[in-house]
């Protein structure tokens, strides 16, 4: 999606009245990870980082890339590709989205950030096949070819 379209989407949202007015509307940040487009509620998002030096930590599952120093705060980084059971890979646009989940910071490394969308929560449908990890808790079609999967942040940091 081009920048122009992105702006359009945002403007549309504003023209349709303030999103806060409609309680079923929520803003989502969408990102790519190995060909899938996923969304996470902007309530969780703290910031997006690029070119971060990640310190590896031994003795942890492989999907944990390591830890970063975010202005003196230590933030663990989860590689979304590995967490979803895909191959590890980096692209030019690979970046880290820092999320605040239950007031603890966790970063997810994704292939790239796309845009912020206002989505009517009532339109979100459950996923037909429950994936084993429960990482995705809903989906919505964006266009005829594209679907957006919603990341379940609680499941993301569940460790048992």
């Amino acid at each position, binding site marked *: 999606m081009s920048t122009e379209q992105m702006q359009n989407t945002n403007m549309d949202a504003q023209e349709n009245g303030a999103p806060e007015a409609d309680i079923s509307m929520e803003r989502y940040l969408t990102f790519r990870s190995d060909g899938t487009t996923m969304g996470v509620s902007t309530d969780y998002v703290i910031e997006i980082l690029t070119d971060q030096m990640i310190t590896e930590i031994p003795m*942890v599952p492989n999907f*944990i890339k390591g*830890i970063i*120093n975010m202005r003196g705060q*230590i933030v663990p980084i989860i590689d979304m590709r590995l967490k979803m059971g895909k191959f590890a890979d980096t692209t030019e646009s690979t970046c880290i989205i820092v999320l605040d989940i239950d007031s603890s910071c966790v970063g997810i490394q994704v292939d790239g950030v796309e845009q912020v969308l206002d989505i009517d929560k009532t339109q979100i449908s459950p996923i037909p096949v429950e994936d084993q990890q429960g990482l995705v808790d809903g989906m919505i079609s964006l266009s005829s070819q594209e679907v957006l999967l919603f990341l379940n942040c609680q499941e993301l940091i569940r460790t048992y």
Partner: protein
Amino acid sequence: MDNGMDNMLDMYLFETNSLLEQLDELLIEAEKNEEFTTDDVNEIFRAMHTIKGSSAMMEFNSLMTIAHRIEDLFFFVRENGIDSLNSTDKSELFNLTFKSTDVLRGEVEKLENNEPLSTNIDSITSEINSFLNKISGAGEPEEEAPAKEEAPELKAAAGSEAGQKLVESFGSKCPFFLQIFFEEGCGMENLRAFMLVNALHGTELEFEFYPEDVESNSATSEVIIDHGFFVGFHSEEDVNKAIAVVEEQGSIQTYEVIHVEKKPEAEKAKASDAPKAAAPVQGEPAKGTPAQNPGKEATGAQAQHAKQSLLSVNLSKLDALQAIVGEIVITESMVASSPELQGLKLDTFLKNTRQLRKLTDDLQDISMSLRMVSISGTFQKMNRIVRDMKKALNKDVRLTIIGEDTEIDKTIVDSISDPIMHIVRNSMDHGIETTKEERIAAGKDPQGELILSASHTGSEVIISISDDGQGMDTEKILAKAARNGLLTKPESEYSKKEILSLLMLPGFSTNEEVTEFSGRGVGMDVVKKNVESVGGTISITSELGQGSCTTLKIPLTMAIVDGMEIRVGKTIFTIPISNIRQSIKIARENVLHDAKGNEIVKIMDEFYPIIRLHEFYNIEPEVTSIEDGILIWVEAGDHSYCMFVDELLGERQIVVKPLPSYLNSFNIKDYGISGCTILGDGNISIILEVMNLYNAANV
């Protein structure tokens, strides 16, 4: 601190907790002397009064009621003098007071944990009431007539002189009055009073009330606000029944029982003289603020002399300060060693950075000293435990405390309190002989002794808990360990030190029976874990028949440590300097192998295993040959071994940062990764915990 209510609750908890702690200390001391001094009684009375007042303000009714009852009890004691009680009553008074402070503490804990307060506190209040009735009844024959009249009262007499006068002005024949104050600003006091009257009518009690025209005359509101609403009764039983009703009514701030005294003025003056501190307090509870304020002043004035220069600060503020100071230390070293400066000749700059370093060091020392608290609080708690267990186990033991002024980081104090408690319980339960006869037979003082001591040694605090009891039987320990399958080598090879450290393995408890106090099988291993979690070590020594001694070595603070930076592959680790004995380069031929093929090295006639960090942590190393890398000889607790690393990077002071809790849930602490620190260039170094690494490598 988000809002006023939290703030107030914090203050309330702080104040109440410190009062309860003071009380405990005082009670222990008093019980030791088997006597309450007049000061003690006054102190308890004041403390309870303050707790009652502030609890009422916070609307914690259960706390308020209990404190109120104890206050009543000690008011009686104060009025009649402690000498009016016989020794059984005294010991009962001690037990009752201990018990009630426990209940209070329980309630406060509930508040701290955000649990609802108990609504049913009848058992403790009725216990206090019945005791009060008992001693007031018992007090009668000894006292003269005026005292007799005074005796059965709760807290009347001198306390509410103002109320007295008012009651007298009613010209009623009732000897007992309830003076009731409604909540400030609740409005329609006269109707509330009338509702109360209706409720009392329902109980078939005989009573009179003043002002009498509450139902029809709304002007009486003012009178009730200023002087309270009075209900007169003919007997004390009626008063108590009525109190139950009154307590059920809403909007009632305080109530007080007033006993109309029919005695000469001189007598009254005398009575009101004694409790000077409280007299003005209860005389004017109706004034603006609730009753606790004057009470606070009374205690405050007392404490002020000692505590004038003290200030209580929220721990989170100190944490923030510590964090900032840590950042400053890092930034300072970042600035001073910026790569841009290399090769430049900057005399003034160097001079100034040296000065800056000195200042930051001072700042760090001061900020660290702010967090230091004396360990006496923890030790005083042990007094209480020893006292309770003494009673329960029927053993005669005295607790000697040495060096209670030793200071230690606040967070560490909090986390070693439980381990110390556990060890003290163990000593009481298993250490000290069961009967006096056993002790006498062993040629010891019939009274057992438990010594709790703390002292400083540079960077550590040493806490030891020793008893002169029966000591530990190493053979029994060994046999039991063998039975539980805890031995890893033949029994004959165990040294005494090793046998005693078996005690701290999980699933080991020497006592066959589980008792209330110790021996649940989750004993010393938990203690050991707790102590190690704050970076401390624990060791036990014991002589059979002579007693045992448990020693804890605790670092002064965990926040800033001297560390040695090392590199393995691309990863940078930091090892606390205190764990490092030496770093050595060795030749390949000096590396030996044990039966399993593990590498070992001989240093100073002793053999030590080598742990290759790159193998252990699965890191791509730059060097694998023992000659190219370097060995670091480390020691922690009872273990000593060598780590093989790529290179030493140098020593520096580091600020320990905990790992994110998400990572800790993967148990990486068990693999020796205890925390991390931010290096001068913004990168992160992982702090190794030498002991855990050893344990993990040997599994």
